């Protein structure tokens, strides 16, 4: 995919995180502290405001600028987590203008590793990792099967949504929701759900 595609993906994430401020915060009110949407929205508003001025030398540089712009303003857990994720993804495509399907998988794997390293969470701890990993697996599968980019995107969205919904059954083991213990069971994880929303929007506009 082209660098424009990368920009399209990042732009969709940016717009959606601003648009879903209230929804994401409401999700975080159930077992968290209700600021997830607010934090993301403030960070991505910063990205939107500086959008035209980002260095677009290559896809990696572009994503790195986005990461720094965003995480300078996102507080809470999401600042370091999302900042680290985008930074690591940026590192994979440093110097590249064209991003292959394999690159996308590698970027997502790098992002997940970054998140794990930063916050100590793993699969099953009821965080956004639980949506990111199945989504990445789905992309890898579809690419191997030779699906069209649009089909890959659709499969990614479906996998993310299914996985996000499944976080309902999990007990939170990281972040603020972990303090609630068993009371966190029964509601979806805000971070995982945000991943699903973003994946769906990206697939829709592909």
């Amino acid at each position, binding site marked *: 995919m082209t660098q424009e595609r990368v920009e399209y993906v990042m732009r969709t994430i940016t717009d959606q995180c601003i648009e879903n401020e209230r929804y994401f*915060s409401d999700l975080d*009110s159930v*077992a*968290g*502290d*209700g*600021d997830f949407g*607010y*934090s993301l929205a*403030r960070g991505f508003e910063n990205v939107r405001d500086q959008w035209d001025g980002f260095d677009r030398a290559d896809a990696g540089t572009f994503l790195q600028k986005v990461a720094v712009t965003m*995480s*300078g*303003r*996102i*507080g*809470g*857990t*999401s*600042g*370091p*987590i999302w*900042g680290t994720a985008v930074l690591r993804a940026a590192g994979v495509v440093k110097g590249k203008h064209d991003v292959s399907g394999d690159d996308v998988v590698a970027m997502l794997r790098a992002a997940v590793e970054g998140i794990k390293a*930063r*916050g*100590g969470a793993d699969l099953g*701890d009821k965080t956004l990792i639980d949506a990111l990993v199945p989504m990445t697996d789905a992309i890898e599968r579809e690419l191997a099967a030779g699906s069209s980019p649009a089909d890959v995107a659709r499969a990614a969205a479906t996998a993310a949504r299914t996985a996000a919904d499944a976080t309902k059954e999990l007990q939170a*083991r*990281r*972040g*603020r929701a*972990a*303090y*609630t213990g068993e*009371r966190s069971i029964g509601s979806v994880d805000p971070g995982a759900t945000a991943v699903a929303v973003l994946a769906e929007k990206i697939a829709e506009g592909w």
Partner: protein
Amino acid sequence: MKKFVNDPRNFVPEMLTGIALANPDTLTYVPDYNLIMRADAPRQDKVSIIQGSGSGHEPAHVMVVGKGMLDGACPGDVFAAPPMEYVLETAKLLRSDKGVLLLVNNYTGDKMAFEMAQELAEAEGMNVKTLFINDDVAVQDSTWTVGRRGVAGNFFVMKAVGAAAEEGAELDEIVRIGEKVNSVTRTMGIALTPCTPPAKGSPLFELGDDEMEVGVGIHGEPGRRRAKLVSADEIVDELLGAVVPDLPYESGDEVALMINGLGGTPISELYILYGIAHRKLEEKGIKVWRSYVGEYCTSLDMAGASLTLVKMDDEIARLLEAPAEIAIRVF
């Protein structure tokens, strides 16, 4: 939402502007990093003490900047850890030859931001230490969470390290003192109502007319259990029952006793709780060395209170009694 606010997004900057205008001679405000710092900081002959954490806990921490307490506080938005950049830039602005101490309430977001900032500050050649505060007994230790939360007991850590820094103590010594105070400090809170974050505009959780949340977190995190609202006597029993055996505090011990208001509870009720707790402690043979009644670490407009005990020794007593001057004052 029943609040004095303009655009909720400007809640924190407008509050910080007010604090700075109210204390023009003693405080400086650096809007870029939500930073309130002592006008005379950094001083190269003392360690700089910095707190971060989310907003919404005032007077903690922006209003306790001053002589004998913090050199700077760089809060995030309401209930959100500050962005790493704020912490890093604050550490740079308060860089001192004697070093910088970052005080962190033990939450995932804060921990990550402060650890990242510490790494980067060290990379720039600074002498930085981080001290975690985790006095909340409501949360059981667990390998799954970052562990116990830092709540109102952080006041005692700030006071002690602030006094030590003011006396010119070295960074390692200050860390030792802070860790010691933290290690003998325990807190448990109870909520009677939820709080309403300004950006959300509605209560963070729901609590029935006759319910209370036992062990609530200062961000409205659920506590140990939800229970029927009971009398002040029974509530104090519940709080002491959680706090006293945890250290444990024992007959013969001397303690500082804090009743901290969570924001919406009037001080009249805090003194009712204080009186009961004081008597019940003395019944257990635990002597109250000094009282701390009022709002120290709040949760916006939440009605509720927390009870903190600090086991005293001569060193801690001396540091807690040392003079300090901060924005929060009566006169």
